[in-house]
């Protein structure tokens, strides 16, 4: 359906292609399908055997053996959060609550307190991200005015036995490292 500038939609009806006799008896098509799958079967079998014999070959499967092989995560993808520090090691977070405000999943909980440093003034007493609720939208990173939070750890695993274990507190978040 193509929308016209004047707002009237132009409709083109596409008919499903008619099946011929050979297609309707289905047998030939089944054979064609078998041919496709068999080609894959034998080529992959050949490659696996070649590899087992120690020969250089293309991989016989696209599977990533996950826990042994690292998960391939695109450089730009949003992964687990981390909190950054100032040059003197203090957390950068100013507890402005902008990430908490923008978070659509309401998974960020910050409690603010007075900083002993009068020039810093305000800092986070606690900073908690509940990854069980996080939707990894990255709004918190966008909203942060002091670049205190990033989603560049490259880590995506967050399985846990308890929901409470999916929450990350401020020390865990500060301890995260960026991906290498």
């Amino acid at each position, binding site marked *: 359906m193509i929308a016209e500038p004047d707002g009237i939609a132009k409709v083109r009806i596409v008919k499903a292609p008619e099946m011929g006799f050979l297609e309707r008896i289905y047998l030939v098509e089944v054979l064609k399908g078998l041919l496709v799958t068999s080609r894959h079967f034998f080529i992959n079998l050949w490659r696996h055997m070649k590899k087992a014999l120690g020969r250089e070959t293309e991989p016989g499967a696209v599977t990533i053996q996950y826990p042994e092989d690292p998960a391939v995560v695109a450089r730009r993808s949003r992964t687990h959060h981390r909190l950054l520090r100032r040059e003197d090691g203090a957390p950068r977070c100013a507890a402005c609550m902008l990430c908490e405000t923008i978070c659509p999943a309401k998974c960020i*909980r910050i409690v603010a307190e007075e900083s002993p440093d009068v020039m810093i003034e305000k800092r986070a007493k606690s900073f908690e991200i509940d990854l069980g609720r996080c939707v990894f939208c990255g709004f918190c990173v966008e909203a942060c005015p002091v670049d205190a939070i990033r989603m560049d750890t490259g880590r995506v695993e967050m399985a846990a036995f308890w929901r409470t274990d999916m929450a990350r507190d401020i020390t865990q978040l500060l301890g995260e490292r960026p991906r290498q």
Partner: protein
Amino acid sequence: MPEITLSIDGVSVTVSEGALVIDAARSAGIDIPHYCYHPALGNPGVCRLCMVEVEGLPKLQVSCRLKAKEGMVVRTNSSAARRAQSSSLEFHLVNHPLDCPVCDQAGECLLQDTYQRCGLYSSTVREDKRHKPKRVKIGERIVFDSERCILCTRCVRFLDEVTKTRELGVFGRGDREEVELCPGRRVDNPYSGNIVDICPVGALTDADFRFQVRVWYLAGTASVCPGCARGCSIFVHSNVQRPWHAGGRRVVRLKPRFNPEVNGYWICDEGRYGCKSIDSPSRLKAPSLLKDGKVGAISWEDATKLVSAELAELCRAKGPQGLAVILSGTLSNEDLFAAKRLFIERLKAGHVLLRPGPDQLGEEDGLLRRKEKVPNLRGAQALGFGTAIRESSWEKILAGLTSGEIWGLYVVDRDPLAVWGAEAGEALLGLPFTLHQAANANRFTRAARWVLPSTSYAEEDATFTNFQGRTQRARKAVAPLGEARPDWRIFGGLLAALGAEFPYGSARSVFEALAGERSDLVGLDFELAPDGEPR
């Protein structure tokens, strides 16, 4: 006063003679950006932000010092006016630290608002910002940040003109100019919180509210302050969406609501910080019964049934003369209506006391604060308490207790031990019936056999009649804590359990029934919003 007509941005505006152009524009719905101007304070014209173009005058004029004249043609939106406003704003921001992320004012800051409206430039200032003292505690509740100050002098003028205490002044010149405490003074007057409200930026912050919760999380509910007999119009600011802020307090702060008839733009500190009782740990959450030295929780159904049965039995056996009821002026009109039905008409209690005693009297001044620290004394009087209904006295009740003449004490919202002294507690021990009905626990709560939790003023819809006889509406800002119920509902439950009629399901229906007894309420609409806006 004769009226004049002028044109502002092409809109014809009629105002009384002598009105300022900025006020005339506001009455036409045109908001001219401004910092130093405040309708209740003198207008020195220091911020230079409210510049407007006036036809026939060669230069731009400061609209907060310009009186409106017949036939005047004012443009607030012309490119010259815009440029002037924008340039003034840039000057204000030369030394402003722009630390909005940590600033408590962010979200209700006039600098932010004005920048969104007529700023939106990139700063051209290359010099370093001048640093000034930060986080200076200039009073018990006020924290001052000189860097953020734009020297509008609203606070100085408030202390000069309204409280006349003159703690602050402007010192220095040029970029060293600063608002500072006068030598040896601190801003500790009973109205000091107002300078935080009128500060257009984050220079003055409330030590109590600092970093507790961001202002954009707050919901405002128009209500009435229960702190004293004046009944100032207020906004109750509450945060229920994110309970981890402000240490779990739901009602985080109170702000004055403009009401020219009652409180103008201000409220006192006593009322302002009175909201802490709403979420204090002393709140009572469920009905309880003291039995064999142990306090046990009990359901409302059982409590209502047992209390009414006890009252009926004791009244029958020992006579209603021995029942002493201590009510409070903190009760709303609706509560008092139900209390009257229960204690006067149904039970015919021998002793009824409502007058504020030493526990509910305090300081008074000529500005806002009233001596009686209860919001509804006039409402109680209008219902007959202290007039048609003869009141007992603290001494008489204490004497009755010691002589054994009084068998029951029903106390609402008050602490008799605060009046009688702690030693009177022994006289209560052998009493067959003691009941404390209140929002917050006090010493009497521990002595009472029955404890019934009632709602605080921010948790119910109610009306209060202030010392002027003005009936105002308090609105429900947050849900009742725990199982707390409005007092009128508790009284109504007891009435129903005693077999009396109390067919009211909402505060509104009680109010409408009350209007049949009080002529001053006839024609008032329970839902009608009181006017007034924040400033």
